[in-house]
């Protein structure tokens, strides 16, 4: 079975996130890390590969240094990494990003495409839907348990009220939640071995992606202005002198929230 995992390099959790006022884009100059739920997607891919055989390819669209983060997936055990990186792709919105990934995936022809449920920076939780739509493949999101048997996947999907159990034929697209597994730590052996695994950085042209369909040119979104969220006005500060709980209840009642 051929599994592709789409991953994103995001600013490390310790980095203070800011929007660059001149480009209106997220400042990505600080330390990067692999998006947290993408680790769950990688882990799930490795388990499926170990159970069913095949290979795990890691795919990302991002700046060249995103390869440092992809290498973590290789250290965990993935077989190879492909990074689509091109100055012309900077500024890609959802429409453009999903086009680029769908085109790259179309060439890979995986049986299963795994995504993380959502990125910790842009937080859209929607890219997988756009990619699945472009590929015309079934899609299950928020998956907390995944099994594959004879060309059919079954995903247990977390909802507000319990679980939906959804089956779909392969090839398919799945977005996993962080409840699906506990991602392994890369072992030292894995880390040392990662450098000898195939790591390709390809341009848009190499990947067969038309430059005018990605980047600012291919984006349907225009960011007109960015501003910090307005300061919250209606704040009450309580010093806990033993009566804080009572005061909180009073406050909530007054606001008719309870």
């Amino acid at each position, binding site marked *: 079975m051929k599994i592709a995992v789409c991953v994103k390099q995001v600013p490390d959790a310790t980095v203070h996130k800011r929007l660059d006022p001149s480009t209106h884009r997220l400042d990505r100059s600080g330390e990067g*890390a692999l998006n947290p739920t993408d680790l769950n997607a990688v882990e799930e891919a490795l388990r499926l590969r170990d159970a069913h055989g095949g290979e795990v390819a890691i795919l990302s669209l991002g700046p060249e240094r995103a390869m*440092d983060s992809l*290498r*973590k997936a290789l*250290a965990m055990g993935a077989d190879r990494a492909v990074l689509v990186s091109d100055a012309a792709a900077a500024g890609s919105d959802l429409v453009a990003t999903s086009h680029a990934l769908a085109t790259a995936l179309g060439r890979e022809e995986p049986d299963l495409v795994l995504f993380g449920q959502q990125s910790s920076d842009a937080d859209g939780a929607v890219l997988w839907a756009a990619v699945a739509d472009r590929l015309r493949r079934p899609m299950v999101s928020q998956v907390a348990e995944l099994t594959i048997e004879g060309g059919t996947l079954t995903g247990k999907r977390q909802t507000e009220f319990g679980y939906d159990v959804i089956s779909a034929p392969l090839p398919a697209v799945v977005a996993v939640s962080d409840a699906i597994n506990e991602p392994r*730590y*890369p*072992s*030292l*052996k894995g*880390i*040392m071995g*990662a*450098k000898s695994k195939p790591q390709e950085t390809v341009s848009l042209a190499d990947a067969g992606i038309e430059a005018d369909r990605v980047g600012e040119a291919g984006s349907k979104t225009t960011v007109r202005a960015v501003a910090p969220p307005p300061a919250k006005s209606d704040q009450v500060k309580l010093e806990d002198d033993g009566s804080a709980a009572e005061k909180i209840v009073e406050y909530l009642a007054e606001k008719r929230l309870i």
Partner: protein
Amino acid sequence: MDLDLTSEQELIRDTVRAFARERVAPVAEELDREARFPVELVRELAELGLMGIPISERYGGAGGDTVSYAIAIEELTRIDSSVAITVAAHTSLGTMPINLFGSDEQKERWLPDLASGRKLAAFGLTEPDAGSDAGATRTTAELRDGSWVVNGSKMFITNAGTELTWGVTITARTGEDEISNIVVENGTPGYEISGPLHKLGWKASDTRELTFADCAVPEGNLLGPRGEGFHQFLEILDGGRISVAAMGVGLAQGAYDLADAYARERRQFGKQIGKFQAVAFKLADMAVEIEAGRQLVSKAAWLKDQGRPFALEAAMAKLYTGELSHRVVNQALQIHGGYGFMDEFPISRLYRDQKILEIGEGTNEVQRMVIAKHLGL
């Protein structure tokens, strides 16, 4: 000149950092309180290949460089010293004599279990009457009928008595003016291991007193040529100092992390205490010293990786980081006020764990002697 870590070294740092935060931090307080050796954590560390970082892959190690090893020890110590010294003593003191001085046959026989962390090893140099003056070893080993018959005792030996311990390499007098290193496996008749010693810090680390009474080990347990023990242990200590120096940086960084967080959270006189210049300046001074110490450790480790002489730099790094961790943990506790004196606050554990960094693997005074000697004084 390039001061960046390689992407591999960065990945090792990030992995050990995450492991320390997620796996070690939640149990560190309990392990310390119960003075319980962290056998489960050692098994997990072994699984990740962290019990034999600088040992060749040929013998089941990770084949990593000294810089990576130092980074791993720093990151572990940042969270907990007992776990860090367990790894460092096993690697630099327990496994290294065999790795450096063992014959091919000895390495094939012993290293795979040690480098993979399935078993732990100790190094027994210190004796009740031979501490800083380690050459004054009184333990004797006499060759009789194809066996070394060992008599004597060893003091304060790390990792000697855990359920994972395989054995110990000891220095022993094998002649009038002759010291040799000999391996004694656990379970050898005549080799007795005391109960765990009770300590101020490093409480979850295993420390024992060892006695040998007509303890006969095979002649083939001699490491390297007979009579080379003195030079061998000096070489072991040179390398070991890099890991203890990395512990100094890690402990200081851990203390800094706690103090920094506390200074942002604690309010007095209507302000975060970190807004008082007296507190902010303490943190600034700590940050400077830690960075300086880290550079000294990196330099010593890098020199070793280049195959260049590193003993002077290792001693400098060990001395400086031992003393800087003392200053930093002291100020970090000061910033915590009375809460820092309470067992529930991790800074109190770091405070207790710090002192030994100025004593083990050569006291501050001994480091100064080593440095002065290198300077030709």
